[in-house]
């Protein structure tokens, strides 16, 4: 008899190669994803004359610096993409480059291509690697030195994280999405609330989410400080995976299905922490400040530093100054300058459908960019005519990449401009120096585009499928 274990423990245990005296484990890495930012790590390998240990388990994707329109914005940006291509070619790594039909944001591409599977360990030099946990994998972001280590050894040293189960009971209301669930819990626990923890999302509202919704939820785990986020695999997971390019087929598919059915946490498995949230209480949620924890329901007012807890006052005052907001004003009705629909958080096909369902037959009052999460998402969206909806509304439909979420490719929000964004970080300067970001769901961004101000999308859904 083995002791009851969590999903995280089961996967962890199956990957331990060696345990060090201090409790750190050397773990086997099943999938390693690299992008342009991995150049520091490849440079380290070159300095030491090392080869990539497992090129077959490594995939290169151009996303952070790829232009969404035409050619790279500068020579330096073009060089970043070329360097990744050269490094992948030198080491025999599969590479999805610009104009490859499989290209896209690395965290959209992994699940979409079936590189991400339940029961795997996955790493990437990007904090939003937590996304892949939606399929029931342990997936986390690492730094450049660790990327070099994984390239050289296909292993990583880690200490097991503490476990936190976030249970969303009940059902979400109309117009409420996985993005709202994520901003809700992060606001409640804080941006450091899950530090040192592996989060398992559970409960009926999580089970009811589509794969796309689960990917959004797990994507934002890092914004609550978590090492990773996970959802136990179920029929939704298996139906999503079957037939995708890199998913095992034939007898391997059957064997995998059998192995995956043992993964969910045992009924009596113990978690270090348990937090329960009533899904019905979650409202369309927007951020007002400069951290994802600065989130409130759209019906709320901008917080007043003078009425806040002592240790929050200073942060709130600084955030309001940066964001150009006054305490006590309703969030709803705040005028915006532009919108952005994209990123590894919310640029999958379902996200685009949600935004399009609000925008159909309407015209945006402000300009905006829509960047699908991958070339494949773009293709499907165009087959469905979603690109027409966005264009007819006056928004700009562009190629796939990280784009205006992080601004590395030159797609930036100008200083002082206010952007309603489906992205993951409202940090100062994240979307460009001086840019003011409000995070929200794709449907809420679409609503903001239509009215030109922060708006409760539920008022625009009457008679429409949400």
């Amino acid at each position, binding site marked *: 008899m083995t002791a009851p274990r969590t999903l995280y423990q089961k996967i962890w245990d*199956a990957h331990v*190669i060696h345990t*060090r005296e*201090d409790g750190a484990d*050397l773990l*086997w890495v099943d*999938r390693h994803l690299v992008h342009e*930012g991995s150049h*520091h790590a490849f*440079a380290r390998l070159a300095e*030491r004359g*090392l080869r990539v240990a497992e090129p*077959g*388990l490594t995939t290169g994707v151009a996303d952070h*610096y790829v232009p969404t329109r035409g050619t790279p914005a500068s020579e*330096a*940006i073009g*060089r*970043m993409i070329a360097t990744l291509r050269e490094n992948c070619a030198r080491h025999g790594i599969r590479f999805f480059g610009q104009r490859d039909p499989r290209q896209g944001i690395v965290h959209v591409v992994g699940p979409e291509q*079936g590189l991400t599977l339940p*029961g*795997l360990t996955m790493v990437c*030099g*990007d*904090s939003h690697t937590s996304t892949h946990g939606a399929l029931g994998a342990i997936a*986390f*972001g*690492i*730094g*450049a*030195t*660790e990327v*070099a*280590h994984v390239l*050289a050894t296909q*292993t990583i*040293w880690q200490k097991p994280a503490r476990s936190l189960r976030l249970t969303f009971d009940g059902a979400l209301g109309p117009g409420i999405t996985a993005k709202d669930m994520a901003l809700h819990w992060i606001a409640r626990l804080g941006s*450091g609330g899950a530090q*040192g923890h592996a989060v398992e999302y559970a409960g009926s509202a999580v089970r009811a989410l589509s794969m796309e919704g689960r990917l959004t939820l797990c994507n934002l785990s*890092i914004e609550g*400080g978590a*090492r990773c986020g996970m959802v136990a695999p179920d029929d939704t997971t298996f139906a999503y995976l079957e037939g995708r*390019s*890199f998913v095992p087929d034939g007898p*391997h598919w059957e*064997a*995998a299905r059998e*192995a995956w059915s043992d993964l969910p946490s045992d009924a009596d498995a113990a978690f270090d922490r348990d937090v329960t949230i009533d899904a019905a209480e979650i409202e369309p949620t927007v951020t007002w400040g400069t*951290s994802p924890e600065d989130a409130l329901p759209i019906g709320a007012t901008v917080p007043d530093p003078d009425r806040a807890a002592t*240790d929050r006052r*200073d*942060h709130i005052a*600084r955030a309001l100054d940066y964001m150009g907001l006054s305490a006590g004003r309703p969030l709803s009705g705040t005028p915006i300058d532009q919108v952005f629909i994209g990123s590894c958080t919310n640029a999958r096909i379902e996200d685009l459908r949600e935004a399009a369902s609000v925008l159909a037959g309407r015209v945006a009052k402000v300009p905006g960019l829509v960047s699908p999460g991958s070339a494949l998402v773009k293709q499907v969206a165009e087959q469905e005519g979603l690109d027409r909806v966005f264009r007819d509304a006056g928004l700009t439909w562009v190629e796939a990449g990280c784009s205006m979420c992080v601004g*590395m490719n030159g797609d930036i929000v100008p200083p002082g401009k206010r952007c309603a964004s489906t992205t993951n*970080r409202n*940090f*100062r*300067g994240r979307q460009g*120096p*001086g840019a003011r970001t409000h995070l929200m769901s794709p449907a809420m961004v679409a609503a903001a585009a239509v009215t030109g101000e922060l708006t409760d999308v539920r008022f625009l859904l009457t008679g429409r499928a949400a």
Partner: protein
Amino acid sequence: MSGWRTHSGPAVGLDQHGIDTDQLIPARFMSTPRTEGYGRFLLHDQRFEEGRPIPGHPLNTADAEDARFLIARRDFGVGSSREAAVYALVDFGIRAVIAPSFGDIFAANAVNNALAPLRVSEAAAESLLSLTGTGATELHVDLTATHMNAGQEKIAFALDDHWRTKIINGWDDIDLTGKHQGAIAAYREADMVRRPWAVVARGA
């Protein structure tokens, strides 16, 4: 990477919590080769406006030029996994960041570059911040000890034991893992039999 055991020098304080890695180094600087030095990018958009230093920022004072320690409030280094945030601190001359808590990925990256993430209590961070608020403060940190010295004051800090050893010796994980090559090969071979489905299928 060269390790270190003790450092003495000026500390600068940033009375902010949640200083994220996008602030530590804005993304637009990250295509720069490391050989050019990342110190000038540290907290760039807090320190500079239209290319000119903003007077009064703690990192723009004359004392900050020789700073070896940075003190801040909780959740230092949250956000992006960019190791460039650590490069910016190290290239600026910082050898230890002192705060009540750190982003997990940032802390691991720091140790891999011999930058010590030293955890102190909220109260200790506040008292250090009030010391630095009156001008540069000299700190003495000995990684083999459990306290740092700020003048007459002794302040307790926490650092994972393995991290402590790694920083002192300047160890690199690739070297440390080398001695486990046999175990890695054995795992790989057994795993191919146990989980043949986990190897990447050919793809379309």
